[in-house]
């Protein structure tokens, strides 16, 4: 699919540029032509030939399809669908890294800061972080042999 989108985008751009150039050429030719069809004071736009018109429309359509195909997947707009995808798959990688070489992850539970939903009570509530408890747990784990 990304390949098809890239092909459509390139083709669309090339043909659109070509159609615009042709229109410009055609316009400048007919404007300087001595055989003007219009005799009124209002300058009338010369009509674009059918082949350029078709090229314009087709290239725009190809470009539009390519852009739609190459856009990222839509996010759910229903709360329950969105939140259930968060709980089912957890945080996903965004494929980017910070300067400290840390992976940037996608969004997670926005209410984690309440600390109501973690394995141990109150964890995630940063303002009330129980550092001594956390260190106690760590020391106990090390003494127990450091296995998971």
């Amino acid at each position, binding site marked *: 699919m990304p390949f098809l989108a890239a092909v459509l985008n390139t083709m669309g751009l090339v043909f659109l540029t070509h159609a615009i150039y042709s229109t410009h050429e055609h316009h400048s030719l007919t404007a300087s032509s001595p055989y003007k069809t219009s005799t009124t004071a209002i300058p009338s736009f010369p009509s674009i030939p059918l082949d350029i018109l078709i090229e314009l429309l087709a290239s725009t359509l190809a470009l539009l399809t390519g852009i739609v195909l190459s856009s990222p997947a839509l996010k759910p707009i229903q709360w329950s669908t969105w939140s259930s995808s968060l709980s089912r798959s957890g945080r996903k990688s965004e494929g980017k890294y*910070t300067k*400290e070489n840390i992976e940037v992850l996608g969004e997670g539970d926005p209410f984690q800061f309440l600390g109501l939903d973690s394995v141990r009570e109150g964890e995630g509530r940063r303002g009330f972080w129980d550092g001594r408890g956390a260190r106690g747990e760590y020391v106990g784990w090390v003494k127990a042999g450091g296995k998971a």
Partner: protein
Amino acid sequence: MSQPNLLTPPAHISPQSALHLSQKAPLILSKPPTSSLPWPLSLLSSSESPETWTTYENLFYTCLQTGDDASARQILSFFSNRFSETNERVIVLRGLYEELQARNKVELEAVLKKYNQLISEDPTRFLVRKRKVAVLKSLEEMEEAIGECVRLVEESPTDVEGWAELGELYKSQNLFPQAIYCLEEVLLSCPNSWGAHATLATLHHLSSSSAPTPSIPSLTLSLRHFCRSIELNDSYLRGFYGLKVLSSELIPLLQNYNPSSRRNQHNDEEDVAPPKLETVKKLEELATGKLGEIVRRYGAGDNGWTGYEESEIAAARKLLDKEGKVVR
């Protein structure tokens, strides 16, 4: 389950992942984040990014957890050079460091005294006041911790974190009506939080099971909140687990339930109409089905189903196995 991450750490950092994370400290700390050049030039050569300080803060927490005090001290000096000693968050980080240096109760009480002094200098230092609650809690002076937390939410009633903490403090003292009140306050600010609904449901359930006889209104309220939590998140393991436990408790109660005898009692909870027996049975079926699906697909490692906690899955499997249904 993805690797724990310093930028967006999980709520629960297990000792193993804390060790893993704090081992990154030497590499990250090898380069100071701020430039040593004077002001206009420092803007050009600084390596700060929006994520830098979040990373440092999270690294600070894991270093404290694993006892890597040297790295913690280094991060602390980065923070106070960058944001000055008087910044409230820097004060809190320094306080945290001192809390963990305290080897006994007396030293911890000295930290508490320092917090008291900071608060009396400026009573709007809410972050420091939160630390004070946490220290009182680790000193196991629950009464004082609750009192301090009550003052905190009285003066800052929109602080959901404070309400959540107060609810948990009350719960630890088995004061369920007060805890329920606190969680309802949390819901006022975060009505879409599925976790808050599930916690409130758990509290209603606990208040019913701590009473001498199971109270149908409490269980009904609990059922309602569990239903709301899975309405907000339709793959919420804890919600389905609670729903299943609750409905299997409610079904025998509702079978012997006589609505006419209820009218004679005049409780405050009288306006909570119990659910219909068929509804509860259907809810139980739904919860069993969904729990089965979650356990099965997590076990199979299906794509997009691996975000659950191992321990939660184990609990769900145990609950389903108790019924004699083989899931796998």
